Protein backbone atom coordinates (compact mmCIF):
# COMPACT_ATOMS: atom_id res chain seq x y z
CA UNK A 1 0.00 0.00 0.00
CA UNK A 2 2.60 2.58 -1.00
CA UNK A 3 0.06 5.17 -2.21
CA UNK A 4 -3.16 4.59 -0.27
CA UNK A 5 -6.28 6.66 -0.86
CA UNK A 6 -6.23 9.77 1.33
CA UNK A 7 -9.50 11.48 2.23
CA UNK A 8 -9.11 15.16 3.00
CA UNK A 9 -12.03 16.64 4.90
CA UNK A 10 -12.60 20.40 4.72
CA UNK A 11 -15.34 21.73 6.99
CA UNK A 12 -16.30 25.21 5.93
CA UNK A 13 -18.63 28.00 6.95
CA UNK A 14 -18.75 31.29 5.04
CA UNK A 15 -15.15 31.20 3.89
CA UNK A 16 -15.74 31.53 0.15
CA UNK A 17 -12.82 33.97 -0.16
CA UNK A 18 -10.25 31.58 1.29
CA UNK A 19 -11.54 28.18 0.20
CA UNK A 20 -9.87 28.12 -3.21
CA UNK A 21 -6.43 28.67 -1.68
CA UNK A 22 -6.97 25.84 0.79
CA UNK A 23 -7.94 23.47 -2.03
CA UNK A 24 -5.08 24.67 -4.19
CA UNK A 25 -2.67 23.83 -1.36
CA UNK A 26 -4.04 20.26 -1.41
CA UNK A 27 -3.79 19.97 -5.19
CA UNK A 28 -0.18 21.18 -4.93
CA UNK A 29 0.73 18.16 -2.78
CA UNK A 30 1.80 16.13 -5.81
CA UNK A 31 -0.25 13.17 -4.57
CA UNK A 32 -2.88 11.83 -6.92
CA UNK A 33 -4.73 9.17 -4.94
CA UNK A 34 -6.88 11.47 -2.89
CA UNK A 35 -10.46 12.59 -2.46
CA UNK A 36 -11.35 16.05 -1.22
CA UNK A 37 -14.57 16.25 0.76
CA UNK A 38 -15.93 19.74 1.38
CA UNK A 39 -18.59 19.85 4.05
CA UNK A 40 -20.42 23.15 3.84
CA UNK A 41 -21.83 23.75 7.30
CA UNK A 42 -24.71 25.93 6.17
CA UNK A 43 -22.77 28.78 4.54
CA UNK A 44 -24.83 31.80 3.51
CA UNK A 45 -22.20 33.20 1.14
CA UNK A 46 -21.34 31.93 -2.36
CA UNK A 47 -19.35 28.90 -1.15
CA UNK A 48 -21.38 26.47 -3.28
CA UNK A 49 -20.74 28.43 -6.47
CA UNK A 50 -17.03 28.73 -5.72
CA UNK A 51 -16.71 24.97 -5.17
CA UNK A 52 -18.49 24.26 -8.47
CA UNK A 53 -15.88 26.30 -10.31
CA UNK A 54 -12.96 24.62 -8.57
CA UNK A 55 -13.02 21.34 -10.41
CA UNK A 56 -14.71 17.97 -10.57
CA UNK A 57 -12.51 16.06 -8.13
CA UNK A 58 -14.29 17.68 -5.19
CA UNK A 59 -17.07 16.07 -3.25
CA UNK A 60 -19.40 18.79 -1.97
CA UNK A 61 -21.85 18.16 0.86
CA UNK A 62 -24.16 20.85 2.20
CA UNK A 63 -25.73 20.56 5.63
CA UNK A 64 -27.60 22.82 8.02
CA UNK A 65 -25.26 24.67 10.35
CA UNK A 66 -24.31 22.24 13.14
CA UNK A 67 -20.78 23.29 14.04
CA UNK A 68 -17.30 22.10 13.04
CA UNK A 69 -17.42 18.76 14.88
CA UNK A 70 -20.61 17.71 13.07
CA UNK A 71 -19.20 18.89 9.74
CA UNK A 72 -16.03 16.82 10.20
CA UNK A 73 -18.11 13.81 11.22
CA UNK A 74 -20.17 14.13 8.05
CA UNK A 75 -16.91 14.01 6.12
CA UNK A 76 -15.71 10.97 8.06
CA UNK A 77 -18.97 9.14 7.32
CA UNK A 78 -18.48 9.38 3.57
CA UNK A 79 -14.67 9.12 3.49
CA UNK A 80 -13.35 6.09 1.63
CA UNK A 81 -9.64 6.61 2.34
CA UNK A 82 -7.31 4.45 4.41
CA UNK A 83 -5.74 7.71 5.55
CA UNK A 84 -7.63 10.78 6.81
CA UNK A 85 -6.51 14.40 6.79
CA UNK A 86 -8.33 17.59 7.81
CA UNK A 87 -7.88 21.13 6.60
CA UNK A 88 -9.85 24.15 7.76
CA UNK A 89 -10.96 26.33 4.89
CA UNK A 90 -8.87 29.36 5.86
CA UNK A 91 -5.69 27.36 6.48
CA UNK A 92 -3.10 25.93 4.10
CA UNK A 93 -0.98 22.83 3.79
CA UNK A 94 2.68 23.47 2.98
CA UNK A 95 4.07 21.71 -0.10
CA UNK A 96 4.94 18.04 0.48
CA UNK A 97 3.02 17.75 3.74
CA UNK A 98 1.18 14.68 2.53
CA UNK A 99 4.14 12.78 1.11
CA UNK A 100 6.29 13.55 4.12
CA UNK A 101 3.75 12.63 6.78
CA UNK A 102 2.42 9.65 4.88
CA UNK A 103 5.86 8.09 4.57
CA UNK A 104 6.54 8.49 8.29
CA UNK A 105 3.10 7.27 9.25
CA UNK A 106 3.21 4.17 7.06
CA UNK A 107 6.70 3.32 8.31
CA UNK A 108 5.54 3.30 11.93
CA UNK A 109 3.03 1.31 13.92
CA UNK A 110 1.54 4.55 15.24
CA UNK A 111 -1.88 5.59 14.02
CA UNK A 112 -1.56 9.37 14.24
CA UNK A 113 1.21 11.71 13.20
CA UNK A 114 1.23 15.39 14.25
CA UNK A 115 3.55 17.93 12.70
CA UNK A 116 4.48 21.52 13.47
CA UNK A 117 2.40 24.62 12.83
CA UNK A 118 3.26 28.07 11.58
CA UNK A 119 0.99 31.10 11.75
CA UNK A 120 0.26 33.27 8.74
CA UNK A 121 -0.32 36.89 9.58
CA UNK A 122 -0.79 40.17 7.81
CA UNK A 123 2.47 41.87 6.96
CA UNK A 124 1.06 45.11 8.28
CA UNK A 125 -2.42 46.45 8.76
CA UNK A 126 -2.55 48.15 5.36
CA UNK A 127 -1.20 45.28 3.30
CA UNK A 128 -3.62 42.41 2.63
CA UNK A 129 -0.82 39.90 2.10
CA UNK A 130 -0.28 37.12 4.62
CA UNK A 131 3.27 36.29 5.65
CA UNK A 132 4.69 33.45 7.71
CA UNK A 133 5.30 34.33 11.31
CA UNK A 134 8.76 33.41 12.63
CA UNK A 135 7.43 31.31 15.50
CA UNK A 136 6.84 27.63 14.88
CA UNK A 137 5.40 25.29 17.42
CA UNK A 138 4.05 21.80 17.96
CA UNK A 139 0.46 21.72 19.05
CA UNK A 140 -2.39 19.32 18.91
CA UNK A 141 -4.28 20.15 15.76
CA UNK A 142 -6.39 18.15 13.34
CA UNK A 143 -4.97 20.05 10.37
CA UNK A 144 -1.30 19.40 11.13
CA UNK A 145 -2.00 15.69 11.65
CA UNK A 146 -2.60 12.67 9.46
CA UNK A 147 -4.61 9.68 10.68
CA UNK A 148 -4.94 6.03 9.84
CA UNK A 149 -8.65 5.27 9.54
CA UNK A 150 -8.16 2.55 12.20
CA UNK A 151 -7.85 5.34 14.80
CA UNK A 152 -11.38 6.57 14.05
CA UNK A 153 -12.72 3.03 13.98
CA UNK A 154 -11.50 2.61 17.57
CA UNK A 155 -12.15 6.06 19.03
CA UNK A 156 -15.29 6.97 17.07
CA UNK A 157 -16.47 10.36 15.91
CA UNK A 158 -15.88 13.83 17.32
CA UNK A 159 -18.33 14.86 20.07
CA UNK A 160 -20.88 17.11 18.37
CA UNK A 161 -22.06 18.53 21.70
CA UNK A 162 -18.77 20.37 22.01
CA UNK A 163 -18.52 23.62 20.09
CA UNK A 164 -14.97 24.19 21.29
CA UNK A 165 -12.18 21.77 22.26
CA UNK A 166 -13.79 18.90 20.37
CA UNK A 167 -10.38 18.10 18.89
CA UNK A 168 -8.78 17.87 22.34
CA UNK A 169 -11.64 15.64 23.51
CA UNK A 170 -11.02 13.29 20.58
CA UNK A 171 -7.25 13.20 21.15
CA UNK A 172 -7.78 12.47 24.87
CA UNK A 173 -10.06 9.58 24.01
CA UNK A 174 -7.49 8.34 21.49
CA UNK A 175 -4.85 8.45 24.22
CA UNK A 176 -7.13 6.49 26.55
CA UNK A 177 -7.53 3.88 23.83
CA UNK A 178 -3.77 3.43 23.93
CA UNK A 179 -3.31 5.02 20.50
CA UNK A 180 0.15 6.50 20.19
CA UNK A 181 0.98 9.74 18.45
CA UNK A 182 4.12 10.31 16.43
CA UNK A 183 5.20 13.96 16.87
CA UNK A 184 7.33 15.60 14.24
CA UNK A 185 8.87 19.05 14.06
CA UNK A 186 8.47 19.66 10.32
CA UNK A 187 5.81 22.27 9.55
CA UNK A 188 2.69 20.56 8.21
CA UNK A 189 0.06 23.28 8.64
CA UNK A 190 -0.12 27.01 8.02
CA UNK A 191 -2.82 28.69 10.08
CA UNK A 192 -4.18 32.04 8.99
CA UNK A 193 -4.62 34.13 12.10
CA UNK A 194 -7.31 36.75 11.79
CA UNK A 195 -9.85 38.47 13.90
CA UNK A 196 -12.66 35.97 13.45
CA UNK A 197 -10.64 33.01 14.62
CA UNK A 198 -8.92 34.95 17.37
CA UNK A 199 -11.77 36.63 19.13
CA UNK A 200 -12.41 33.57 21.21
CA UNK A 201 -14.73 33.95 24.12
CA UNK A 202 -12.22 32.90 26.76
CA UNK A 203 -14.69 32.20 29.57
CA UNK A 204 -16.94 30.13 27.37
CA UNK A 205 -13.94 28.32 25.96
CA UNK A 206 -12.64 27.49 29.42
CA UNK A 207 -15.99 26.03 30.41
CA UNK A 208 -15.82 23.58 27.52
CA UNK A 209 -12.18 22.84 28.34
CA UNK A 210 -13.06 21.99 31.96
CA UNK A 211 -15.89 19.77 30.77
CA UNK A 212 -13.65 17.92 28.33
CA UNK A 213 -10.98 17.35 30.99
CA UNK A 214 -13.50 16.31 33.61
CA UNK A 215 -14.94 13.70 31.25
CA UNK A 216 -11.43 12.38 30.69
CA UNK A 217 -10.75 12.28 34.45
CA UNK A 218 -14.00 10.35 34.97
CA UNK A 219 -13.06 7.81 32.29
CA UNK A 220 -9.60 7.40 33.84
CA UNK A 221 -11.12 6.77 37.27
CA UNK A 222 -13.47 4.22 35.76
CA UNK A 223 -10.54 2.39 34.14
CA UNK A 224 -8.53 2.52 37.37
CA UNK A 225 -11.43 1.20 39.46
CA UNK A 226 -11.86 -1.65 37.02
CA UNK A 227 -8.17 -2.46 36.84
CA UNK A 228 -7.95 -1.81 33.10
CA UNK A 229 -5.07 0.02 31.45
CA UNK A 230 -6.85 1.50 28.47
CA UNK A 231 -10.29 1.72 26.89
CA UNK A 232 -9.28 -0.66 24.14
CA UNK A 233 -8.63 -3.44 26.65
CA UNK A 234 -11.97 -2.70 28.28
CA UNK A 235 -13.74 -3.26 24.98
CA UNK A 236 -11.84 -6.52 24.45
CA UNK A 237 -12.78 -7.72 27.92
CA UNK A 238 -16.44 -6.95 27.44
CA UNK A 239 -16.71 -8.86 24.16
Amino acid at each position, binding site marked *: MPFPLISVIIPTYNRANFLHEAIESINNQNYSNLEIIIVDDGSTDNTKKIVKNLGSNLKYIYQKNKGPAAARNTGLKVAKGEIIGFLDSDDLWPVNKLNYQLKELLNSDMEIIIGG*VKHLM*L*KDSKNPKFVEH*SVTYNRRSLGSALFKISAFKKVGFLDENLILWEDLDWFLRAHEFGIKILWQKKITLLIR*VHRENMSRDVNRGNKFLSKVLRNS*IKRKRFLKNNGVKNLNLLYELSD
Partner: protein
Amino acid sequence: MASYKIRTPQISHETIDGETVIINLDNGNYYSIDGVGADIWNLIDSGANINQISELISENYNIDKDEVHESIEELTNELISEGLIVNSKNNEKFDKAAINLVSLENNKNPEYKKPSLEKYTDMQDLLLLDPIHEVDDESGWPTPKDSESD
Protein backbone atom coordinates in the same frame (compact mmCIF):
# COMPACT_ATOMS: atom_id res chain seq x y z
CA MET B 1 -4.21 37.38 57.73
CA ALA B 2 -2.91 35.52 54.71
CA SER B 3 -4.95 35.83 51.58
CA TYR B 4 -4.52 34.42 48.09
CA LYS B 5 -5.81 34.79 44.58
CA ILE B 6 -5.98 32.49 41.59
CA ARG B 7 -3.26 33.11 39.01
CA THR B 8 -5.54 34.09 36.13
CA PRO B 9 -5.60 34.06 33.14
CA GLN B 10 -2.96 31.30 33.02
CA ILE B 11 -5.06 29.22 35.41
CA SER B 12 -8.50 28.23 34.22
CA HIS B 13 -10.98 26.56 36.56
CA GLU B 14 -14.57 25.43 36.71
CA THR B 15 -16.64 23.61 39.32
CA ILE B 16 -19.04 21.04 37.91
CA ASP B 17 -21.20 18.84 40.19
CA GLY B 18 -19.05 19.50 43.23
CA GLU B 19 -15.76 18.79 41.48
CA THR B 20 -13.37 21.58 40.53
CA VAL B 21 -11.16 21.08 37.49
CA ILE B 22 -8.14 23.38 37.41
CA ILE B 23 -5.93 23.80 34.35
CA ASN B 24 -2.51 25.39 34.16
CA LEU B 25 -2.41 26.68 30.60
CA ASP B 26 1.30 27.50 30.93
CA ASN B 27 2.40 23.88 31.14
CA GLY B 28 -0.62 21.69 30.38
CA ASN B 29 -0.94 20.21 33.88
CA TYR B 30 -4.46 19.81 35.20
CA TYR B 31 -5.98 19.03 38.56
CA SER B 32 -9.13 17.82 40.22
CA ILE B 33 -10.33 18.62 43.70
CA ASP B 34 -13.72 17.97 45.27
CA GLY B 35 -15.72 18.34 48.51
CA VAL B 36 -13.92 20.43 51.14
CA GLY B 37 -11.08 21.17 48.70
CA ALA B 38 -13.49 22.51 46.06
CA ASP B 39 -15.06 24.73 48.73
CA ILE B 40 -11.67 26.07 49.79
CA TRP B 41 -10.74 26.76 46.15
CA ASN B 42 -13.96 28.64 45.50
CA LEU B 43 -13.56 30.62 48.73
CA ILE B 44 -10.06 31.66 47.61
CA ASP B 45 -11.60 32.65 44.28
CA SER B 46 -14.16 34.80 46.13
CA GLY B 47 -11.47 36.74 47.94
CA ALA B 48 -11.88 35.18 51.40
CA ASN B 49 -8.79 35.23 53.61
CA ILE B 50 -7.50 32.15 55.45
CA ASN B 51 -9.37 33.04 58.63
CA GLN B 52 -12.67 33.50 56.82
CA ILE B 53 -12.15 30.23 54.93
CA SER B 54 -11.39 28.33 58.16
CA GLU B 55 -14.46 29.74 59.85
CA LEU B 56 -16.82 28.86 57.02
CA ILE B 57 -15.45 25.38 56.47
CA SER B 58 -15.51 24.62 60.17
CA GLU B 59 -19.11 25.84 60.35
CA ASN B 60 -20.38 24.06 57.24
CA TYR B 61 -18.71 20.74 57.97
CA ASN B 62 -19.14 20.94 61.74
CA ILE B 63 -15.48 20.35 62.46
CA ASP B 64 -12.90 21.88 64.79
CA LYS B 65 -11.52 25.15 63.43
CA ASP B 66 -7.87 24.44 64.31
CA GLU B 67 -7.93 21.12 62.50
CA VAL B 68 -9.47 22.76 59.45
CA HIS B 69 -6.97 25.59 59.57
CA GLU B 70 -4.07 23.17 59.36
CA SER B 71 -5.56 21.35 56.36
CA ILE B 72 -6.20 24.64 54.62
CA GLU B 73 -2.61 25.74 55.12
CA GLU B 74 -1.35 22.45 53.73
CA LEU B 75 -3.58 22.77 50.70
CA THR B 76 -2.75 26.41 50.00
CA ASN B 77 0.98 25.60 50.23
CA GLU B 78 0.47 22.88 47.65
CA LEU B 79 -1.56 25.21 45.42
CA ILE B 80 1.21 27.82 45.62
CA SER B 81 3.98 25.35 44.80
CA GLU B 82 1.96 24.11 41.83
CA GLY B 83 1.71 27.72 40.63
CA LEU B 84 -2.08 27.81 40.82
CA ILE B 85 -2.50 30.61 43.39
CA VAL B 86 -0.39 33.53 44.55
CA ASN B 87 -0.34 35.76 47.62
CA SER B 88 -2.79 38.62 47.46
CA LYS B 89 -3.21 41.85 49.33
CA ASN B 90 -6.90 41.11 49.57
CA ASN B 91 -8.31 44.37 48.34
CA GLU B 92 -11.55 42.65 47.43
CA LYS B 93 -14.44 42.55 49.81
CA PHE B 94 -15.50 39.02 50.54
CA ASP B 95 -19.25 38.46 50.18
CA LYS B 96 -20.25 35.27 51.93
CA ALA B 97 -23.73 35.29 50.44
CA ALA B 98 -22.54 35.45 46.84
CA ILE B 99 -20.69 32.15 46.78
CA ASN B 100 -22.01 28.68 45.98
CA LEU B 101 -20.28 26.09 48.10
CA VAL B 102 -20.39 22.35 47.56
CA SER B 103 -21.14 21.92 51.27
CA LEU B 104 -24.23 24.10 51.01
CA GLU B 105 -25.69 22.45 47.94
CA ASN B 106 -27.16 19.53 49.87
CA ASN B 107 -29.29 19.88 52.97
CA LYS B 108 -27.67 16.93 54.69
CA ASN B 109 -24.62 17.40 56.87
CA PRO B 110 -21.72 17.07 54.46
CA GLU B 111 -19.02 14.59 55.37
CA TYR B 112 -15.64 16.14 56.15
CA LYS B 113 -12.75 14.62 54.21
CA LYS B 114 -9.28 16.10 54.24
CA PRO B 115 -8.87 17.99 50.96
CA SER B 116 -6.69 16.30 48.39
CA LEU B 117 -5.50 17.63 45.06
CA GLU B 118 -5.27 15.11 42.20
CA LYS B 119 -2.69 16.06 39.60
CA TYR B 120 -2.59 14.93 35.96
CA THR B 121 0.51 15.48 33.86
CA ASP B 122 -0.07 12.94 31.10
CA MET B 123 -1.61 15.35 28.60
CA GLN B 124 0.89 18.20 28.50
CA ASP B 125 1.61 17.69 24.80
CA LEU B 126 -2.03 17.83 23.90
CA LEU B 127 -3.09 20.65 26.20
CA LEU B 128 -0.72 23.43 25.30
CA LEU B 129 -2.31 26.37 23.53
CA ASP B 130 -1.33 28.35 20.48
CA PRO B 131 0.70 31.47 21.05
CA ILE B 132 -1.53 34.53 21.32
CA HIS B 133 -1.01 37.43 18.95
CA GLU B 134 -2.16 40.94 19.38
CA VAL B 135 -5.03 42.16 17.26
CA ASP B 136 -4.83 45.52 15.60
CA ASP B 137 -8.27 46.94 16.25
CA GLU B 138 -8.26 49.21 13.23
CA SER B 139 -7.53 46.57 10.65
CA GLY B 140 -9.22 43.70 12.44
CA TRP B 141 -6.21 41.54 11.62
CA PRO B 142 -3.23 40.73 13.75
CA THR B 143 0.24 41.66 12.65
CA PRO B 144 3.43 39.83 13.59
CA LYS B 145 5.22 40.93 16.71
CA ASP B 146 8.90 40.14 16.43
CA SER B 147 9.41 39.93 20.16
CA GLU B 148 7.17 36.89 20.45
CA SER B 149 8.83 33.64 21.21
CA ASP B 150 7.57 30.16 21.81
